[in-house]
């Protein structure tokens, strides 16, 4: 069984989700729940902190795709930060940098919400 958890915190009215472990088909539901909660709480500005994210599968990538439109509709966005190199490669190969703003650090992503609120 994969180990995965999503931590919730807020930084300047941005919802920061700390991902830990492996995000695959079995654990995707946790991330889905987290996105749903942000949408329900009307905090559509989301930064996903991937510092402790060890692995992501296509199912995990799919979760981002499934919720980004709703989040953007609410006037927010999903930004991704601090990905480990191996994990970043996976995102990169799929072309995610063209759809999502991927930054080095969480702070950078949070700041970007203030300056450029919506996706490129």
């Amino acid at each position, binding site marked *: 069984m994969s180990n*995965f*958890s999503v931590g919730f915190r807020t930084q300047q009215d941005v919802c920061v989700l700390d991902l830990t472990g492996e995000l695959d*088909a079995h*654990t995707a*539901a*946790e991330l889905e*729940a987290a996105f749903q909660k942000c949408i329900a709480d009307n905090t559509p500005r989301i930064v996903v902190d991937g510092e402790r994210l060890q692995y992501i599968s*296509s*199912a995990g*990538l*799919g*979760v*981002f*795709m*499934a919720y980004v*439109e709703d989040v953007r509709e609410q006037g927010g966005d999903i930004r991704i930060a601090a990905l480990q190199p*191996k994990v970043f490669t996976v995102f990169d*190969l*799929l*072309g995610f940098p*063209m*759809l999502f703003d991927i930054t080095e650090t969480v702070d950078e992503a949070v700041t970007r919400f203030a300056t450029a609120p919506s996706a490129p």
Partner: protein
Amino acid sequence: MPLLSPVSQRTERALVALTDRPRRRAALAAAGALALVATVALQGVAWVDGVPLSGLLRVAQAASVAVVSGAGGLLLARALRRQAEPHPRVLWQVLLVTLGVLAVGRALVWALLPAGADDDTAAAYGFAKNGAPRIAGSLALMPLMALADLFVAVYALVRLREFVLFKRTRGAVRNWGAMLAAFVVAALLVEAREEPGAEFDLASQIVVGVASALAVVNAVRISWIVYLPLRQKLATIGLTLLLMAVFVVAADGGLTAGGTSFVAHYSPGLAVFIDLAFGFGALYSVATFLFLLFHLPTSTDFQRSAGERRALGALTDLTGAAFDPARLGEAIASAPVTGGSADRAWLALVDPLSGSLRPTVVAAHGLDLDTACRAADCEALFAEIDATGQPLRLDDAFADHRIHAVPDVRIGSLLGVPLVARGRVLGVLFAARDVAHAFERDDEDSLRLFASQAALALEHARMFEDQVEKERLRSELDIARAVQQRLLPQTLPDVRGLALCAASVPALEVGGDYYDFAPLDDDRLAVIVADVSGKGTSAAFYMAELKGIFRALAHRSPTPLAFLREANRALAPALAPGVFVTALYAIVDPVGETVQLARAGHCPAALVPAEGPVRYVEGKGLGLGLDRRGIFERTLNEIDLPLAPGDTLVLYTDGIVESRSEADEEYGYDRLLDALTRHRALDAPALHAALLDDLHGFLGTNPYGDDLTLVVLKWHGAPADASSDGAASESSLPPHRTRGPLSPIPALA
């Protein structure tokens, strides 16, 4: 007593036999009627003579009365014979019948006696001092009252028999038989020895005493009372008092204003029998009353444990029937309330799938779910229970900060019992009472018992669900795999100068790998390798769609870019949210000696040139289905590569690079490149095999987590080249089918 048993059995059988057939019954009735007429006639003689009967006439009278009583009694007993359950309802019937008949008797007396029959002397009832009837009225009343009282006595005895013999043991049956026999013996004896209206002598008194003693023995058989619900017990107390009063009055003859007297003058023996019967009725009523009185204070406890047994029984039944965790949850939440242990109850479970240990209230009884969540802080309570593993009891729930005041629901005491199965705490069953300090040790123990049963039941229900799900998935997988096999190319195309080797090895959890070839006009060959995200039948179906798109559009797409753009437009709307397809599309031009390719989110193709370093072909591109707003088109790169003889192009899916060794290490892109470098000189099939061998060696005994696909295209140069001899035969090699060099597929642990 042993002596009595066979005797009483035979007697009973004989008596029953007497009323067995309708003809016998008719005969009995006729005999009784005749005897009755005879008694009236004989009493008529006494009336005329002014002296009570004696000698032969007396014997005749006695015999006739015996026949009347016997016939009447037996016929009535048979008529009432249906096996009634000892229910207070029946006692009411007895009471009403007795009152009714006695009332009728009173009316008769009033009608048939002259005025002034209010005092209790023999004269007042129309009898001379010597016992002979003096007026016509008493002549009529004697048989009438006798029959009436006999009716009531037999009725009461037959009905009470069911109560006395509720616990039908041999001893009980014997005692009852003995009592009835004693009544009859006493009656006969008195009849033989006494004068109507006279006092009894010692012998008679002794016999009557023995019969009374036997009546007492039978009067204390009251076990039927215990199983009644509380309300009925309370009602029965009143009933027994009434019955007692009625029987006492009846035995005394008071209500009928000398009815006993009438019967006593008619036949002293019969009067004794009737009195004994009424006496027994009174004794039984008294005993029942006293029993109830002493039993009531403890009956609530008995009630509760009976209730608990019921609830436990219901739960056990349910575990067999309910494989639905939701329904089971409701049944568990309602059990404490229906069993009488609590006023309200609710069940909070931890959801294992989400991995978080936050309990949610899934069912509630006696209050709604919402209120249950608000009234108690389930998380905090659960945390404490989870930590200790023991039930938690709040005797003064109001005072606890984890209990909140909610309108309409008072929680005075709270008991939380953990549901533990296989060492895991599945959740907590909360039981609440309105009053503080309402739970006792007993309640904790019985709820603990519930909870362990409930936990097992829940665990089984979940396991069952899991099993059903697994079965469903297994058959889904089989379908998906069959579909996948059909979609992959069955033969490899024959392109001069190009050697091909391709294989796709499915994992146990079927993914969505796909590869295909389409020879285009002017000798070109289109190649596609694709990977649908996700697994199972939906992935297989998307694969099928992609195949359709490929077969339709490949011929009409001049470039990889053109195809992929069209493919994205066609596919994107059809994919579910979050689903995407990665693809690598290449067009090999043997005439122009180039290859054009575009990478839509897929693993980069590897180029193994005849000379020079092995490298990945870089190129940007979004996966298919991720975007419909033009970003896909704008960002997709197309790469043109020249092809020199000996160059090899390797296309694959991420199942290869993401395979993990026993040490949980990924094969990775670097290793792949390294393997390609080492085997670069091999021809297409050999290179294909060598790569898979290398991968297999790396994996060890680990199974595949994902499908893996490997397509090797080796360019041997234009057909005019000498080195192409081998190429033609190589390219017509049958493709390695799915079970390739790596069969059999290692089973998942």
